């Protein structure tokens, strides 16, 4: 380990911290919408700012996927897949967080309308 190694490590840490700061600022944005994708197509947009508990059912690759919204958080309640990774993940609520259910080809993504759209486009 020499001086330039330490410089490399320091600059990598610096850059990642800057990016983490930017990303956490994006995450703090209000007006959250959860978007449900099936095979990269938007199936449903759900406003997470309303507080009441709701359930949505989306057709996934292996059958119906039950999605629950509660107090600004969203989770996959029930789904048909070998490992149940997405239902085990539990609730997500922050911007840019996502639940990916590959077997069902379903992706749930929380988006802050303006900034994410700007980033993606």
């Amino acid at each position, binding site marked *: 380990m020499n001086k330039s190694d330490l410089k*490399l490590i320091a600059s990598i840490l610096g850059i*990642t911290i800057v990016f*983490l700061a930017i990303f956490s600022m994006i995450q703090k944005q209000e007006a959250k919408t959860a978007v449900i994708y099936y095979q990269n197509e938007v199936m449903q947009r759900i406003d997470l700012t309303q507080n009441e508990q709701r359930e949505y059912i989306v057709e996934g690759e292996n059958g119906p996927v039950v999605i629950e919204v509660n107090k600004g958080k969203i989770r996959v309640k029930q789904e048909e897949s070998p490992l149940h990774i997405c239902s085990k993940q539990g609730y997500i609520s922050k911007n840019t967080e996502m639940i990916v259910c590959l077997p069902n080809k379903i992706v749930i993504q929380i988006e802050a309308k303006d900034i994410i759209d700007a980033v993606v486009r």
Partner: protein
Amino acid sequence: MEYKKQTRLSMFLALSILLSIIESFFPILSGILPGMKLGIANIIIVIVMFLYGRKDAFLISILRVLLMGMLRSGVFSIAFFFSLTGSLFSIGIMALLYKTKLSIIGVSIIGSIFHSVGQMITAILILKIPNLIYYLPFMVLFSLITGLLTGYLAKQSIQYIQRRL
């Protein structure tokens, strides 16, 4: 001389495949973030690069990916492409940087990080999920640690090997 080198390189190739297979038995880390690995096979690539140069390291790296594809994931599966782009990114940056002032550890760190970056780009392009980019800082931090670890191990092994070659 040529035969000696060939034999040693094939031994290194076999070792890197062995390490990849051992690593695939422990998917604990991918529970933290999907796709996370220690990347211990990279130890061999770094050793070969510092003992024999970038060409041979490139060869061993690509052969390892191909053979692992045949043994495990199947050639032309998604996992194979992830592995291939990751390795190409990693070996590319290491080949560029290994004659600079960076030591073995520094080169290993940057190689490990570019492995993650390459896989992330492939994942974004194949799975079409641009929001994956938000996981990149975490992947980079994790790669920094694993790169440090594998770099240290590679350095120790090179000292040990050079005394015996």
